[in-house]
Every structure is written in structure tokens, then in C-alpha cells.
């Protein structure tokens, strides 16, 4: 706020009429204050709690601990598994949704009858609340006795398998990929639609085949859109919770426990506020690495005006 006031004064001196504009520059203040109170203060408190020994089941024994929670968390073999799970889920989801997203965007970037309906059908998995998606897949598709996938396996003469027991991680990834493919598709489709058609026709006249076109014209053009979509999706998938909670509860064992689910268990099942906060700080660090790249891409897009 002090900065905004400083601007007010300096420009006020240049032109008296500017004071009206300067007052208008204070309009974001309520938003900024609200966001500081609801997001930044809790963020600082997470840091503070991470330095404490504090279990909500024994609130009387709350003591200041220093940095001990951090190595304690890191040396826990479960935590290493949880971090690896988080990375496996995030990387596989991003890679598969990117491949399917590009394929679907290319398919939709043509004129054909019923395009609107097809597009509407394809975006629907993204609009459905994650808990409904997970309940639906868990009961109707993955159920080993009555599920559609089990029925399909029987019809094809394959052995039934209990996906959520035997291949829990694959099941989790399938559901999240199903949900997030439309996200990639929509952004990449917007990218394809902003492609310069003259350029493509010129290349076609020069005898470029579809693969050459894709590699040397379409893909470079899509690069910015891919970066944006991949980074945003990464940030969201790092925090996936609902699908895992409903589908596997992080199991069997901790096979599908990611950082979000692990922190939830630490905080609200073991009530260990100190360690949960330290894990939260690790989650923030992980996300910030991605976020820094994201902000750079976004800022470059704004300056060059290509993506806007």
C-alpha cells in the first residue's frame, strides 16, 4: 500500500488531473488485502507451525522445535515413496494428456458434421466434479465383479483383474488422464485455430507432406500453448486429492498416496500439525519450482502478445 501511495504523490505533482486516476489505482486494495489475509497469512503460519512439535490430540504438549521436523520428514521412507508417487502421477498424466490432447485437437481442427456435439461430449469429463468421476469409475468400471471393464474382459476371454487392488496406480492415472485430456485438447485446439492457413497452403504447394507440416509448422506454433497447458496442468495435478481419496484412499498400503493425500493423513488422521506443515512446506517448494517457470512463460506471452 505504501508503494501505491508513493505513486500517487509522484504523478500528482506532474499533472493535477492525474489525482483522479491515482485514486482509481487504489481499487485493487480490497482484493489484495483479502488475498493476503486468506492465503498469505496461512502460508506464513504453515512455516511457523512446521517449526513446532504440535499434535492436536495433545495440545498441551505444544513446543517450539526448530527445524527438526524437516529432516524427520525427509528421512521417513514413506515420505520418499509419497514424493515418488506424486512425481509418477504428475508426469504420466501430463505426458498422456498431452499426447491425447494433441491428437484430439488435430481431429477437431477439421470441418465435419456434428463437430459441435463431438466437442461438447469431449469436454464433459472435465466439467464433472472429480468425486463423481472417481465414484463412477470405481463402481461402474473398475468393480472386479460387476464392473464394465470386468464384463469386457470376460467377453474377450481375458482374466478379470481387480484394477484397484492389482494396478491401483494405473487406475488412478487412467481416471485423471480421462478428466484432464479435455483441458489439453481445448488449449491446443485454440492454438491450432490461430494457425496461419496461408503458411500451411504455401508449404503444401511446395510439396510438404502432413508429417513435415506437423513437425516444422504446426508444432513450433503450438509450442507456446503446450508450455502454458503443461505448466498449468502440472500445478493442478501435483495437488490432486479427490480422485485418490475416493478411488484408492492412497492404497493399497501407500502405493497411490501422493503429497496431498499424505499431508491430509498426517494433519487430519494423525493430527500431527508440525510434521504436516513441514510436508506442506515441501509441497510449496515443489510447486514453486514449476510456478517460477510458469510465470516466466506467462509474462513472455503477455509481452510478445502472441498468446493473448
Amino acid at each position, binding site marked *: 500500500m505504501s508503494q501505491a501511495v508513493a505513486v500517487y504523490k509522484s504523478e500528482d505533482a506532474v499533472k493535477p488531473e492525474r489525482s483522479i486516476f491515482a485514486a482509481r489505482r487504489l481499487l485493487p486494495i480490497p482484493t489484495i488485502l483479502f488475498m493476503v489475509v486468506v492465503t498469505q497469512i496461512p502460508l506464513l503460519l504453515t512455516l511457523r507451525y512446521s517449526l513446532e512439535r504440535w499434535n492436536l490430540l495433545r495440545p498441551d504438549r505444544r513446543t517450539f522445535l526448530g527445524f527438526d521436523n524437516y529432516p524427520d520428514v525427509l528421512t521417513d521412507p514413506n515420505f520418499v515413496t509419497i514424493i515418488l508417487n506424486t512425481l509418477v502421477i504428475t508426469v504420466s498424466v501430463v505426458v498422456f494428456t498431452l499426447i491425447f490432447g494433441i491428437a484430439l485437437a488435430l481431429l477437431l481442427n477439421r470441418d465435419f458434421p456434428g463437430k459441435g456435439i463431438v466437442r461438447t461430449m469431449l469436454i464433459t469429463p472435465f466439467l464433472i466434479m472429480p468425486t463423481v468421476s472417481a*465414484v463412477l469409475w470405481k463402481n461402474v468400471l473398475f468393480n472386479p465383479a460387476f464392473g464394465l471393464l470386468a464384463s469386457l474382459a470376460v467377453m474377450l476371454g481375458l482374466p478379470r483383474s481387480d484394477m484397484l487392488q492389482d494396478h491401483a496406480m494405473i487406475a488412478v492415472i487412467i481416471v485423471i488422464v480421462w478428466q484432464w485430456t479435455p483441458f489439453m485438447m481445448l488449449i491446443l485446439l485454440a492454438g491450432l485455430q490461430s494457425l496461419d492457413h496461408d503458411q500451411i497452403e504455401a508449404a503444401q504447394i511446395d510439396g510438404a507432406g502432413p508429417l513435415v507440416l506437423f513437425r516444422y509448422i504446426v508444432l513450433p506454433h503450438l509450442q507456446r*500453448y503446450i508450455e502454458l497447458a503443461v505448466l498449468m496442468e502440472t500445478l493442478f495435478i501435483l495437488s490432486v486429492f479427490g480422485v485418490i481419496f475416493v478411488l484408492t484412499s492412497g492404497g493399497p498400503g501407500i502405493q497411490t498416496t501422493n503429497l496431498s493425500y499424505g499431508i491430509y493423513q498426517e494433519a487430519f488422521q494423525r493430527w500431527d500439525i508440525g510434521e504436516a506443515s513441514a510436508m506442506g512446506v515441501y509441497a510449496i517448494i515443489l510447486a514453486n519450482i514449476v510456478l517460477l517457470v510458469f510465470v516466466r512463460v506467462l509474462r513472455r506471452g503477455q509481452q510478445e502478445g502472441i498468446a493473448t
Partner: protein
Amino acid sequence: MKTNRWTGFGLTAFTYLVAFVLFFPILWMILTSFKTEADAFAYPPQLLFDPTLANWEIALFDTNFLDHLINTLIITGLSTAAALALGIPASYALAYYQTRRSDFTLMWLISTRMLPPVGVIVPLFVIFRDLGLRDTHLGMIIIYTAMNLPLVVWMMRSFFLDVPYEILEASRIDGTSLWQEFRFIVIPLVLPGLFATALLCMIFAWNEFFFAFNMTVTDAAPVSVYISSFKTAEGLFWAKMSAGATAAVLPIVIAGWIAQRQLVQGLTMGAVK
């Protein structure tokens, strides 16, 4: 791109097939909601059956579904209204009256949206518990307002920037007040964008689970939390579960279909149009 006619037909048919396969789980959920429980888990799976509305009646009226739906409506509606009320003036200033801080403010706002919820959940839980905000509508409205504010600011800013500067300049020379300029000149021009922004806020608030699950128990629990209790349905209540699940997603899916043109812009905070 020009393609051979037969390749074209083939690609179109393939597109239909892919769309059908990806949509099939949702279609199956809708079909199952009209089956009897016996038909719902019959083998082989039944595509043709005598439809019944019995499960819809039970799922909607013999359970707590409607209480949770009302919670969702209250939380979604009021948090969207609050995010717009706070965010529109902010985005207006960030679009038209930029300072050296504007860029930082925008990037900071987006970073609050993209940071992991687990980074703030523990202190929010403690604060809400101490203030008596746990399991209240107000508590959830505060969280969802914060969740959607960056989206509102970024999206509305991108719509405001689309308004031709000449129009604003002309009105300022005529001496219109800020309120007049806003209400009678800018708002009518960005109205479609405003609707799209509101719809997107509603989609995010409606579908959110992590905060809802940890911050509510029963009184303020929205539909997303209620549905998660079906995680152990085990084949016995599939038809009722499907009816409840379909009802839970229907309003927001329709909202998403309506706003699909602006969906990309909203998902990327206005960076892609």
C-alpha cells in the same frame, strides 16, 4: 488442411468413435440412473431396459441430497458474487490505471491461485476452528472467494483490455464519472465476458472437494462431499448412486456447455483466447 475424401470420412468416423468411447462412462451413468438396481449390475451389462424414475425419487427425496445441494448452491452463488464484487474493481484498475506495481500484483495473484492447497490447509483449519467458521457456509464462501478472485481479476482484465481505448477517451473528455464510465460504457461492452467469468467461478466452486472435505462436517457439506460417501457403494446401490451423481453434475455441466467458448480463456486465466 486438405485431405483425400476417403481419408476425411475415415478421420471423421474415428473422431466419432473416440468421442463416444470417452463419453461412454458418463452416458452409462445416466442410463444406469434409470435402471432398477437389479438391471444396474446385471451381466451382461444391459443396454436396453425398462426405464424407471424410482431411483431418482429415492436419490433426491429420501436422502440428504437436497440439503447438500442447497449448501452447494449457497456457497457457489455467494462466493461467485463476492469474487466478482471484489475482483471487478481491481481488474478495472489493473487494466486502465496501471502502476509500476500492476504487473507484480497480477503475477502474485496468479501465484496464489496455483499454489498447492495443502500449503494453507492446516493453518486455515486451526483458524476456522478457533473462529467457529468450520462447517459453516461463511467459511466455505471465504475460501472459494479467495480461490476464484485471481481468475476474476485476470479474466475481467483481459476483457477490459479489449474495449477500444478511443471509447474510454471520448467519455473521459466528456467528463463522465468513474461510476458512469464503468456502469454505462464499459460493463455493457464486457457483459458476455462477465457471464463467462461468473460461470467459470461457479464451475470451480461447485466441483471443489479438498477444502470442502476438510472444512465441513455435515451442516455446510456441499454435494461434492456427499457424493464421496458413495466410495464404498459395492454394487448394491448403483442405480441410486448414478441418479444422485447425475443430479449433482447436471447443473454445472450445462453451465460448462453454455460457457464452452470462453472455457479456454478462463482455464488459462485469459492468456489464450
